[in-house]
């Protein structure tokens, strides 16, 4: 890459693609307001670059139609001179088409055409004008790939893969080869999980692993994945991204952002790897100057790398499968010596009279190959035979008067295996499989556990049978055979003896330790099979079968198999261990939760271990006396890897050292240009923040920045004008993908439907809620959106207040409706009404009644409801009183809305005596306030007036968030 064709420094971001169209290069670029996760865009460009053989040319702009893509990277594909640009409009996948990009003048694209109605598209990639792959996120936070194909023309059909990819994806692209399509994505991968003793407790640590993942699609069948170019000490986040695939001359080119190095030696470069088949990839080349995304495009005139901000070119070369630019140096050869054995090495000496070779390929300053021909001259006619094709590895400039010469040392291509050195643990492991025969050569009854390691309970094995000998406690034993963290299976036959005694037996998967695993078991009392997940010792039922009608008599064997395929667990049963039947679920689904972001890695202990699990009853073992003394717990403090963000009515403040013990917390006022009473804040995965105040909806691209800046992306005045009704932005929520949802709270407007703004900072759009059936408009006028929860699905609560009708919307559909007044708060799985009752989202009666800080102060902690009662004095976790404000905060009245569960299951509790004095900030971890500490510092100076500080009502300035979860964070 030596020549810069063009450079547009004003362009940046990932919304870029490029391709070949006959003799043209095409590039498409969508601008963003800033580096957002989403947002409708208005600045859209498509340009072409003609052949440059006759001289440098400039990119020529094509005419674009009116369109409203959101910030999902576009995908441009061509068929001859026909070009299509596929994009997401937020609710649909669409394309625009230019029938001939080569015409003189200014070719133009037509209006958008619908491909599929699908919202929440994370990425899309077209492999041809009639085939586009795209990725969405399931309600369980798995990423699912789909493909939409056009056949016949004008008719699109979408099919979904059965791959439920459980990790966040940072980039995606696809290319079609002759036998299959290659899909490639930059993704988070199974984190490295380790344990560490801290005091008397063992904590679990996760280290982020990221990499490039490929799938192939052939015959409508989605292959298993391959991983290339991984990194497990992530210094830059993400370390792989902005991926683009291109193909020419039977070579696949993958280009992506590649970060590496440690400490002071980190780098971020554009990496380019090649492959002939999409399976075997080379160690990537790193390019300076061009930033990703960039597309490698060999053309007849040059080799191009077209990037978002600049395009570079080099002469045609064999590296890209082109007919290379070459120099015939036969006439200058004065000597050649070649030794061919395992690796051929050649020294070629050239005369260089008058420095005539200067500037030619014979005097290389870049990578050059030399081709040796030998042959014969018969009757004056020469016959040449190519003997070797070698890489020039050294160049010498020799002078021996009167001669001036050049020497080239070269080696054949096999020598590359000695020159290419990996900078990461490049691994291609094969499948591991094992069968445990449970034979005991020792004869002791304990020698048969050859490949089975007990984690809990007592086990023994001999004679082909493995026995769980302990009673009235769960036994877990782990197979030592396998290591892969994503897919695999386990099967076993089992024998149970009792019903109505709580017995169960089955197989376990993704086992990290005795408190973190998933299992499938037959529960004898219920006569059902259940899929359950255990995290931190807490168990969640994911799915339950209907009645199996199995005979439990101590002599009838049954068999169970769990087959893990990414985020899905397929369960089979058998009566003979030979013929298996799939288990169908009466309730729940076999989809296991995916990872939202690396900071919630604790929710997914990604281990590839399988094992056996069971519980057997024995009368003599039931209810053993509890003689174990309760030791005084050691303090357990959050580690200094997170900061805290706080709101008041008129300030936003953050503390980077909140968890750094031994020093005062330092608070920084980052309110900036925010005006109006502050209501609420939420953060996206990339530390972008959205905040509501009475003046509008505000956006900060990165609250981690040294001096965070705020932009009002929708003023209240503008919203009133657009919606046609006065109101406020109150609640705000951001999805893991970065889309903001901000209800427009229209108070006291009779008979008006409610609605919300959504999108990115660049272009928000307003959506009315549909009018649900059964809503009594006459008696419940003036409905208005209030709160929003956007982590595991979009929930928006609305209502009239005062005990009239209120609704909870999921997405844009009514989820529940009742006379709740407002629905002022929604959390993970629950919501509250104005009267202080907490309901499960999925339906049913209140699980907690008359909590007193429920409207703004309740939260979920480790899957349990955390709430205050007694005018904010008492803090409850489920039904357990875990803290008294009098002892913890020094005052029996705690401020309302004073804690906020963060992503790490740490909680922070705040109180203030009055609107302007008396702060106390207390932090604790999930050990139930046994350990807390005052981190007040100079918070008072930084955080200003707080409305309703002594009371429990009001909605202003009530949020506190934990910020900046870092790599390698302690999550235990």
């Amino acid at each position, binding site marked *: 890459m030596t020549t810069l064709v063009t450079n547009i420094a004003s362009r940046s971001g990932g919304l870029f693609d490029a391709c070949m169209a006959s003799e043209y290069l095409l590039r498409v670029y969508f601008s963003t307001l800033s580096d957002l996760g989403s947002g409708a865009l208005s600045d859209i460009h498509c340009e072409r670059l003609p052949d440059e053989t006759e001289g440098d040319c400039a990119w020529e702009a094509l005419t674009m139609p009116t369109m409203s893509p959101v910030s999902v990277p576009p995908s441009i594909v061509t068929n001859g001179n026909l070009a299509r640009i596929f994009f997401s409009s937020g609710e649909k996948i669409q394309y625009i088409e230019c029938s001939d990009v080569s015409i003189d003048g200014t070719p133009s694209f037509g209006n958008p055409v619908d491909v599929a109605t699908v919202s929440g598209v994370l990425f899309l990639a077209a492999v041809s004008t009639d085939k586009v792959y795209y990725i969405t996120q399931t309600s369980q936070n798995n990423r699912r790939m789909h493909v939409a194909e056009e056949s016949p023309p004008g008719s699109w059909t979408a099919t979904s893969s059965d791959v439920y990819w459980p990790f966040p994806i940072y980039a995606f692209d696809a290319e079609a080869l002759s036998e299959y399509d290659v899909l490639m994505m930059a993704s988070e991968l199974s984190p490295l999980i380790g344990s560490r003793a801290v005091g008397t407790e063992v904590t679990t640590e996760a280290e982020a692993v990221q990499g490039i993942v490929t799938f192939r699609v052939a*015959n409508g069948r989605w292959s298993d994945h391959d991983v290339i170019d991984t990194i497990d000490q992530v210094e830059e986040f993400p370390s792989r991204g902005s991926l683009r695939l291109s193909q020419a001359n039977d070579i696949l080119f993958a280009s992506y952002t590649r970060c590496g190095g440690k400490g002071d030696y980190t780098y971020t470069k554009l990496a380019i790897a090649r492959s002939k088949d999409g399976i075997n990839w*080379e160690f990537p080349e790193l390019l300076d100057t061009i930033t990703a995304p960039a597309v490698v495009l060999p053309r007849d005139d040059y080799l191009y790398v077209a990037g978002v901000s600049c395009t570079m070119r080099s002469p045609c070369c064999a590296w890209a499968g082109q007919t290379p630019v070459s120099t015939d140096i036969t006439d200058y050869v004065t000597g050649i010596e070649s030794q061919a054995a395992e690796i051929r090495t050649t020294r070629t000496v050239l005369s260089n009279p008058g420095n005539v070779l200067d500037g030619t390929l014979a005097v290389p300053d870049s990578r050059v190959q030399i081709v040796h021909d030998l042959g014969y001259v018969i009757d004056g006619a020469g016959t040449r035979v190519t003997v070797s094709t070698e890489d020039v590895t050294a160049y010498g400039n020799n002078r021996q008067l009167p001669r001036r010469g050049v020497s080239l040392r070269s080696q054949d291509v096999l020598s590359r295996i*000695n020159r290419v050195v990996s900078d990461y*643990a490049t*691994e*291609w492991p*094969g*499948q591991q499989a094992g*069968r445990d025969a449970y034979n005991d050569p020792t004869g002791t009854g304990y020698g048969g556990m050859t490949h089975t390691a007990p984690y809990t309970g007592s086990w023994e094995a001999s004679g082909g049978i493995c026995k769980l000998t302990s009673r009235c406690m769960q036994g877990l034993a782990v197979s030592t055979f396998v290591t892969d963290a994503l897919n695999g299976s386990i099967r076993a036959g089992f024998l149970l003896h009792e019903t109505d005694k709580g017995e169960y037996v089955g197989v376990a998967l993704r086992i990290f330790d005795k408190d973190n695993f998933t299992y499938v078991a037959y529960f004898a009392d219920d006569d059902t099979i259940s899929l359950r997940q255990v995290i931190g010792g807490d168990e969640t039922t994911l799915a339950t079968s209907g009645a199996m009608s199995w005979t439990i008599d101590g002599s009838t064997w049954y068999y169970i198999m769990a087959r893990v395929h990414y985020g899905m667990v397929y369960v089979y049963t058998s009566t003979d261990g030979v013929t298996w039947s799939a288990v169908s679920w009466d309730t729940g689904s076999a989809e296991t939760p995916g990872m939202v972001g690396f900071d919630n890695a604790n929710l997914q202990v990604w281990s590839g271990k399988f094992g056996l699990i069971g519980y057997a009853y024995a009368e003599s073992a039931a209810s053993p006396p509890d003689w174990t003394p309760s030791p005084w717990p050691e303090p357990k403090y959050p580690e200094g890897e997170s900061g805290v963000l706080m709101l008041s009515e008129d300030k936003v403040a953050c503390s980077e050292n909140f968890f750094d013990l031994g020093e005062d917390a330092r608070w920084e006022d980052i309110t900036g240009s925010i005006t109006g009473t502050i209501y609420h804040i939420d953060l996206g995965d990339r530390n972008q923040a959205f905040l509501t105040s009475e003046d509008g909806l505000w956006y900060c691209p990165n609250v981690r920045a040294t001096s965070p800046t705020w932009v009002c992306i929708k003023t209240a005045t503008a919203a009133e004008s657009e919606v046609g009704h006065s109101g406020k932005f109150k609640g705000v929520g951001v999805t893991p993908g970065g889309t903001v949802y901000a209800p427009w709270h229209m108070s006291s407007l009779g008979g008006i439907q409610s609605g919300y703004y959504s999108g990115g900072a660049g272009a928000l759009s307003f959506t009315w809620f549909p009018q649900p059936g059964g809503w009594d408009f006459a008696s419940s006028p003036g409905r208005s959106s209030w709160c929003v929860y956007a982590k595991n699905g979009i929930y928006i609560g609305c209502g009239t207040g005062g005990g009239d009708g209120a609704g909870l919307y999921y997405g844009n559909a009514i989820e529940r409706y009742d006379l709740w007044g407002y629905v002022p708060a929604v959390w993970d799985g629950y919501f509250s009404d104005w009267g202080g009752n907490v309901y499960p989202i999925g339906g049913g009666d209140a699980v907690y009644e008359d909590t007193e800080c429920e409207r703004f102060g309740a939260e979920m902690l480790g899957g349990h409801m955390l709430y205050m009662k007694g005018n904010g004095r008492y803090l409850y976790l489920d039904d357990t009183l875990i803290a008294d404000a009098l002892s913890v905060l020094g005052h029996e009245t705690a401020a309302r809305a004073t804690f906020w569960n963060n992503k790490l299951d740490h909680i922070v509790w705040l109180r203030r005596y009055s609107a302007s004095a008396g702060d106390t900030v207390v932090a604790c971890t999930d050990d139930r306030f046994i350990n807390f500490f005052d981190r007040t510092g100079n918070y008072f100076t930084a955080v200003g007036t707080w409305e309703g500080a002594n009371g429990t009502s009001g909605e202003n300035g009530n949020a506190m968030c934990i910020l900046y979860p870092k790599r390698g964070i302690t999550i235990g």
Partner: protein
Amino acid sequence: MAETQFIKTQVHDGRPAIEQENAIQRCLAFAGIHDTSFEDLIWEQHAGTLSDSYEGSEGTWAYSGGVLQGTGNGSAQWYKIRHVTDVEPGFVVTFDKTSDRGGFLFNCDDSYNCHMVWWQSNCVGLSLLAGSTGSTLLSLPIAETGAATVKIAVWPRSYSSVDEIDDLAVMLWFDDRHLFTHMMPYVYYGDAIGLAVYESDTATFDNLRVPQLHHIVEWTSVDPGEPVSSGVSRVIGYEDIKMRARYDGTVHVWRETGSAVDWAMSNDRCLTQNTEENLFWPSHYRLVGAMHEADGFRPGNQGHIFAVGQDPNALSASETYDKAERKHEKIEEAARVTSVATAPNPTLEPEDVVTLDGETWRVVSINYRAIQKGDVRRPIAVLESTIQMRECL
């Protein structure tokens, strides 16, 4: 109170099966070498005569349009055909299929006592066949219909002793999508592989391939700071696998087994020839493997000369014996070498086989030198070429 009991536990993880060829190819591609050529143990594009490649057909089998087509005779049984080339366990086979029902045989003897991986419209599985009858070992309700590239791996596992195969792991993929892995105790029937159709079905198969380097590799890696050659070395171990770059930049990888002559060099082409023979090559060669030792004897004229070698990658007794025999032969080959000065043959490459004056040699290295000597105003072109060769046995 009796205990909760478990039996017949099996586990596998979701990784692919990678044989030596795949492993080497991944390493070479990682080094930027994408143009490679490997040799095949079996590669059937189904042209020519059926009996050249297959035997023991049941039902009707024929080449049709470049594919192998089999049709059953109507009874409720499998109709089978064997490939003439034996394949020892520890291989990955691939082929294309179009029909919804069919089977692949392995561990097969001439009477069709064998194992068979099979697929049909609503399930896939594994059976043990005894001639025309069979018993199912696994039937899993995974419905995968239509055309597919089938990949089957048969992997011997040893737990109790490196010298004994305890289990066979059998793995099935369609289009690189894993369908099942089944472990079963190993019982030897034979080394043949084959294909099968059921009842009156007509099934087609194509591109049946087993690579020459078909042994399954558990782990391939290039560690940080290591050149790719380290990863290649781990894959190859002590095996006699050749790897050479050819004239056009492709890399050829193969296990040298043949002695077909590439160039019959005439005597008058030879300017000089110097042959040297080390008379004291070992007549007795002992290879110390991982767990076993194997002795080989090749008669010489210098009495009994003993030598010892070692190969920690030779695990079983039979493998140690095979490797001892091959290494001993290579030692004897290397004991007699010749150097020939001749005008260069531009088509000759290392490891080619050359006949000269009634003897057969294998090319070790080719050196040539073309220089200009003398007065710079009247240079004299000098061309020198030497071929080093070892005896080809």
